[in-house]
């Protein structure tokens, strides 16, 4: 049986739904030795800011049960260096490269969107309104519907013909209200979810395991939370949703599609083994054939409730 793994995302042909999540796949190039980047449905690169960012002090990562905490603090080389040194080396003609945007206020976000939207090699803009690791602004955008909406609008205005994805935080009472606001503001798609805020301490040294004290929880541990968020958002808005959170197998990918996601991103699982995203992309059509799923479009949101 030959199956159809393609999915429709605004303004972007996608051959399969297996993308990689921002901050967990470097600039893509780091993982090229472990698989063919062109086999992926998309690559979301590490969060970019206008100027390079140093990031948080060490230690920045800690392992937790079935998961990990990070407080990288948006260390990145800045948008200029990305466009000059990284993007040209990525197979952007074959695989959509999605830029993940980070900024401290709406103006900066808009400016960043302006720069990135002018690039042929950038397929979409993913707006990180939810990073818990940056003190200035950071999470506030993602926790207030009004601000999320304004931000989506500001980015959309400068995004030209590039689709705008808004990436939602799970650290909210009502993710649906943020999702609605982002779509009203102009988001073409929503990415669900960013990390949960968490903490880890060392009882011997009496110190937090992250210099930043609080960090973002990711990995299989959070999959049930991500799945719930995706399902709730898919019930409420018609914009496509890209599911992310704890996905570590082709089975997990189908779970997210079953509850309504159009595509997914592999995050922390890339650390489990660097060929993880490639393996999942390869396994997906086999699994679909085994389960008698002809196309993802048909399977999507077919949850029996």
């Amino acid at each position: 049986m030959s199956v159809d793994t393609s999915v429709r995302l605004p303004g972007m042909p996608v051959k399969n739904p297996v993308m990689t999540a921002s901050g967990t796949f470097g600039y893509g190039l780091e993982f090229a030795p472990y698989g063919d980047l062109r086999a992926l449905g998309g690559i979301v690169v590490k969060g970019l800011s206008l100027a390079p960012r140093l990031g948080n002090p060490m230690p920045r990562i800690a392992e937790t049960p079935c998961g990990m905490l990070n407080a990288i603090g948006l260390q990145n080389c800045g948008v200029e260096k990305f466009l000059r040194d990284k993007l040209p080396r990525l197979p952007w003609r074959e695989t959509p490269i999605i830029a993940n945007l980070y900024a401290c206020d709406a103006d900066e976000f808009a400016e960043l969107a302006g720069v990135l939207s002018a690039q042929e090699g950038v397929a979409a803009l993913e707006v990180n309104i939810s990073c818990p690791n940056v003190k200035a602004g950071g999470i506030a955008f993602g926790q207030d519907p009004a601000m999320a909406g304004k931000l989506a609008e500001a980015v959309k205005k400068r995004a030209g013909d590039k689709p705008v994805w808004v990436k939602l935080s799970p650290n909210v009472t009502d993710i649906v209200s943020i999702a609605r606001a982002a779509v009203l503001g102009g988001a073409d798609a929503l990415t669900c979810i960013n990390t949960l805020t968490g903490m880890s301490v060392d009882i011997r040294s009496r110190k937090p395991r992250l210099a930043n004290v609080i960090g973002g929880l990711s990995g299989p541990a959070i999959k049930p939370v991500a799945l719930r968020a995706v399902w709730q958002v898919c019930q409420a808005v018609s914009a496509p949703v890209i599911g992310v959170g704890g996905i570590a197998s082709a089975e997990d990918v189908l779970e997210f599609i079953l509850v309504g996601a159009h595509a997914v991103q592999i995050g922390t699982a890339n650390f489990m083994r660097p060929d993880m995203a490639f393996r999942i992309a390869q396994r997906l059509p086999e699994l679909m054939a085994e389960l008698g799923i002809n196309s993802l479009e048909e399977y999507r949101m077919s949850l029996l409730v």
Partner: protein
Amino acid sequence: MALSGACRDLTILSVTEAGPEGGAHGCYYIELANPGLGSAVAGQFVMVRPACFGQDPVWPRPFSICRLTPEALTLFVQTCGRGTDVLCRLVPGDAVTVWGPLGQGFSLEPETPTLMLAGGVGLAPFVEYAATHPAPANLALVFGHRQPLSCYPFAEMANVVGRAEAFQENSPEDLPRFIELLEAKVAEYAGGLIVACGPRPFLMTVARLARRFGARAQVSLENRMACGVGGCLGCVEKNALGQYVQTCTQGPVFWVEELQLSEEA
């Protein structure tokens, strides 16, 4: 960089406890069959993920290449937590995924008198270093350890290298004497090459002494790593310019003057 291009699913050939019978010293040699990882520079490492990790722990574990031949990859592992416990309880035939060699290894200058400074399990990469060195007579080893000497591959190395000295730290009072020894050695090799691997405080002492005596020295860091391939930015160290560099790709071996070594990692 000598990336192999893929994750290799290997099988355990043997797991052997080192050291005096009956002791619980937690030092093991792990041999993996037919690694197919090409060749390595001593100081490079591999990421290791036993199949039985499942989804917990999420991270693979980094280990120095202790010895790499076409027939076997040997790791020298000291148990210190969940992951190493699991690894050292594997039995022949068990499946382990491995990728590497990763990162930057030690400089190897055949003609230069070279001092290897190793602390505990930090001896691991120097087994490969000595084995691949064209003139091991030019190598000297100073090895600080806590467990009985037979827990470590010291005797084998002593047979190969020009000079080898071991210093057992039995109590905190021994530390100043060990540092004195290091001081004398670093002074002696100030005109040569110094390569060091061991716990962070040990490396900070080496770096301090190297700066003091103007010695050319490299240290191998063991920062926490999630991915090992440059993808997570979790393993960084501050370089001399105040920027964070990945220890998995730009290290784990650095020239001491490249870094601002601080207490935290």
